[in-house]
């Protein structure tokens, strides 16, 4: 036993410490990719107040780097993101959604749709977002836009963001130069509603 005990012990301990390394790295990765970004909720949306900030803690900095690297601080831009609709159901690229609301009080705003990999959906019209310049306001001063697979009525409609394929989807509402009241209390923003239209194929 003594002849083989030492190599076996070294092998055992190497395995245990290797497992510890995997556990440390794996737990960090799971935390970064599975746990949502902390922040303030506004309807279905969440805004992280430390994005791009030097005051961000290590976890926030790492999560922002993974999902929204090169973000700006809240005094410049507020980023509201969501991957679910108003009912809490996950947003799907193959489904159609209606977004409605009042134009946010900001110098400029936009809603952009991203695929699950955080990149833009391919579409030949190169239409990836709606903003204050592309939407039309109704008599009540509200805008509405559609996000979903292209249809006959979507071509040429500047308030329609075409999606592609199947899988998860993320929306980002950007506010450049938000009003001071929104900067002070980002959770108080009257965010656009997100409702699924019809059944998902």
């Amino acid at each position, binding site marked *: 036993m003594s002849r083989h005990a030492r190599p076996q012990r070294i092998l055992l301990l190497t395995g245990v410490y290797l497992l510890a390394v995997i556990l440390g790295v794996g737990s960090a990765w799971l935390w970064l990719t599975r746990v949502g970004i902390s922040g303030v909720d506004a309807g279905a949306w969440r805004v992280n107040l430390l994005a791009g900030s030097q005051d961000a803690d290590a976890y926030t900095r790492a999560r922002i780097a993974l999902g929204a690297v090169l973000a700006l601080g809240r005094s410049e831009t507020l980023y509201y993101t969501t991957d679910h609709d108003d009912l809490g159901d996950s947003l799907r690229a193959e489904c159609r959604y209606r977004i409605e609301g009042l134009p946010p009080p900001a110098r400029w705003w936009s809603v*952009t749709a991203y695929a699950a990999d955080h990149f833009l959906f391919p579409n030949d019209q190169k239409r990836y977002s709606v*903003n204050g310049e592309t939407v039309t306001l109704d008599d009540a001063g509200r805008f509405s836009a559609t996000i979903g697979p292209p249809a006959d009525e979507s071509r040429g409609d500047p308030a329609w963001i075409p999606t592609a394929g199947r899988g998860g989807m993320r929306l980002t509402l950007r506010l*450049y130069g938000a009003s001071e009241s929104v900067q002070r209390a980002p959770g108080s923003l009257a965010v656009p509603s997100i409702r699924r239209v019809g059944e998902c194929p």
Partner: protein
Amino acid sequence: MNPKPLNWTRHLLRVSVVVVLMHGLTIWAVPRLIMDRIIDLGTADSSLERANGVTLPPPTDHTQRRIVMPSPDLLYATCFFDLADGPIRVTLSTDYPRYWSIALYASTSDNFFIVNDRSAPEGRVDLTILPSSHDAATSKVQHHGTQVVISPTRRGMLLMRLLVNEDPAVRVSAEAARRSLRCSRDARRSAAV
């Protein structure tokens, strides 16, 4: 002779320390590795147009897959810097009438400086980026006439954003604005370092 039995309590303690250290190290390293990758790719990518030390990527569309969550409503210009070789001078002169901003990022991904069309309404920017090892007060004297910005890290990047739309006239104006951006080694390097 039989070997001493394993002290599992001691090893359990060490394993716990390794788990915590590796967890923390991963969290710490992720933003730095991502920024290093962005800076390395941006510096080495020969397919991108460059002028005056500035990289001019094409308008954002779905084929852009370098940086996650790009804004399709913005035109970008970037400049990557390494202050080990001396300070960097950044200048801009534009009358672009829409939103624009110049943001500086450390290699930790922190945004440590920003100027935009409202904070520089005359459209002129003149910055000297220095490493944190510099004495800020002395540097202000040595770089009189420019705004001194201390970078918390040696490497970093500048990202200029210009709000555009589908109007060709706006696109032309934005293109001219970003081409007025210059990033260069500061000629007064010897006095500053």
